[in-house]
């Protein structure tokens, strides 16, 4: 099954080279449409587009500094029933992981779908991307990729990629049918693509790409990056834990929260079709607010802020893939990703689970065993 092939690249234009690869895929009979980030109006906004006409791949930006939303939710919409043809979706590694979680919840399907993922250097948060795009215009993506994949670590540091990306230890597209290797790419070398599933291998074969030898530089570069990121991740988690280790500190952490629920909307794995916080359960009677205020002398308005975030932790922390979109969309700049990543690390390890890793493994709260977790039962235990 393992197949490796080369795709040509001119003048180190990574985006263009992958664009041509996608054109080749779309022109084949194997794929009816490509879902890929592109510039719909040619302006400085990059959002996913569903493209059926190869001509329209001109504006595609398969690997870009923009990460306005996690596309897992979009792929879920496109695959919950047959779309009438195979779709090739170009996803970031964290988007693939989120999609895997949605498939487990029956909110998406891998049928009629080819997932193509590229090594991900990280992305900029929205505000930073707008500033970057303003400064560099249509050269923004090329400029970003050149710096992000450069061997000079400090210049990559200067990019100010999102905190969640800086703490991401899974930057390679595990779970993709076809992986595009960008880590360790040498100037002048060809880009290598790897089939990671039977489906991916079949597609590469149909495209008539010749088998080549896998370059080991990618592996080494990826391992280097992951070890740097692991350290950053650990530091982030420790800082966040220290900043939230009492309820009072947690309340302080969320003191800027205005209950806009953007984090819930942006979260790719927040799976409820209707959020309980949007129902009339939370349309409290005016006297209820007065009662809360009366009990302690005052009450923060809007209410139920911690309740909301704690509920989200219970619902999605075992499925959290660390994409950082919660922080990206927060109008109050609350470092949500750091907190959710830190909680997710604990809850996922409590169940020996890793979100997005194995599509055949059931989510921890969807299954049980008769003989497990005896330590949580009983009054004598612990104290």
């Amino acid at each position, binding site marked *: 099954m393992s197949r490796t092939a080369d795709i040509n690249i001119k003048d180190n234009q990574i985006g263009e080279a992958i664009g041509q690869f996608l054109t080749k895929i779309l022109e084949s009979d194997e794929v009816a449409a490509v879902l890929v980030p592109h510039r719909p109006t040619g302006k400085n906004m990059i959002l996913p587009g569903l493209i059926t006409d190869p001509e329209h791949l001109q504006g595609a930006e398969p690997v870009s500094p923009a990460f306005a939303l996690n596309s897992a939710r979009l792929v879920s919409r496109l695959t919950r029933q047959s779309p009438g043809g195979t779709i090739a979706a170009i996803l970031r590694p964290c988007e693939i992981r989120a999609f895997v979680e949605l498939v487990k919840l029956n909110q998406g399907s891998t049928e009629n779908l080819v997932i193509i993922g590229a090594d991900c250097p990280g992305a900029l948060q929205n505000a930073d991307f707008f500033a970057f795009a303003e400064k560099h215009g249509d050269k923004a993506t090329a400029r970003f990729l050149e710096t992000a994949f450069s061997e000079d670590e400090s210049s990559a540091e200067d990019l100010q990629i999102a905190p969640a990306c800086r703490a991401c230890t899974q930057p390679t597209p595990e779970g993709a049918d076809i992986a595009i290797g960008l880590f360790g790419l040498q100037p002048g070398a060809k880009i290598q693509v790897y089939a990671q599933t039977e489906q991916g291998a079949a597609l590469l074969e149909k495209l008539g790409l010749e088998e080549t030898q896998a370059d080991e530089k990618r592996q080494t570069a990826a391992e280097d990056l992951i070890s740097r990121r692991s350290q950053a991740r650990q530091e982030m988690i420790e800082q966040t*834990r220290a900043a*939230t*280790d*009492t*309820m*009072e*500190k*947690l*309340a302080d952490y969320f003191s800027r929260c205005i209950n806009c629920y953007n984090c819930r909307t942006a979260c790719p794995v927040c799976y409820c079709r209707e959020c*309980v916080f949007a129902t009339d359960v939370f349309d409290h009677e005016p006297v209820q607010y007065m009662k*809360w205020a009366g009990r*302690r002398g*005052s*009450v*923060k308005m809007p*209410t*139920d*802020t*911690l*309740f909301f975030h*704690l*509920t989200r*932790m*219970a*619902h999605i*922390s*075992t499925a959290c893939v660390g994409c950082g979109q919660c922080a990206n969309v927060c109008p109050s700049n609350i470092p949500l990703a750091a907190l959710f990543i*830190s*909680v997710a690390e*604990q*809850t996922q390890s*409590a*169940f020996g689970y890793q979100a997005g890793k194995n599509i055949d493994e059931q989510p*921890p*709260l969807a299954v*049980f*065993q*008769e003989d*497990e*977790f005896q330590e*949580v*039962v*009983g*009054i*004598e235990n*612990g*104290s």
Partner: protein
Amino acid sequence: MEEQFDPVIVAFVCNWCTYTASDLAGTSRLGYPKNIRLIRVMCTGMVDTQYIFKAFLEGVDGVLVSGCHPGDCHYINGNFKARRRMKLLKTILPQFGIAENRLRLTWIGASDGIAFAETMQRLVDQIRELGPNPARLQNVI
């Protein structure tokens, strides 16, 4: 002498086992501490994580979830689901300073009236030792 701390404990008890046991304790005239506020639910499997967060945010000092012994669940496996949920909550809450021992899960069968009264007494003693829930004193809603 210092006044003794009187904890408030909310107990979600299943209709078929632990609630019936509490009833039996009552009809057998077995006393148990007034600190326990019983809430009857049909099954521990329906105790949503939200009920428990809400209780702690409202400032209760302890939460008990109690139902049928494994294998005895009226709905076959609700208590196994409850146990996973407790594992989840016992992982989340301590990160924010709510001691794991403030949240308890027990199995008390319908005929265990004596066990019910004893367990409640032990639970109150232990929560009393832990002191008040820090969220009780602060405005953390």
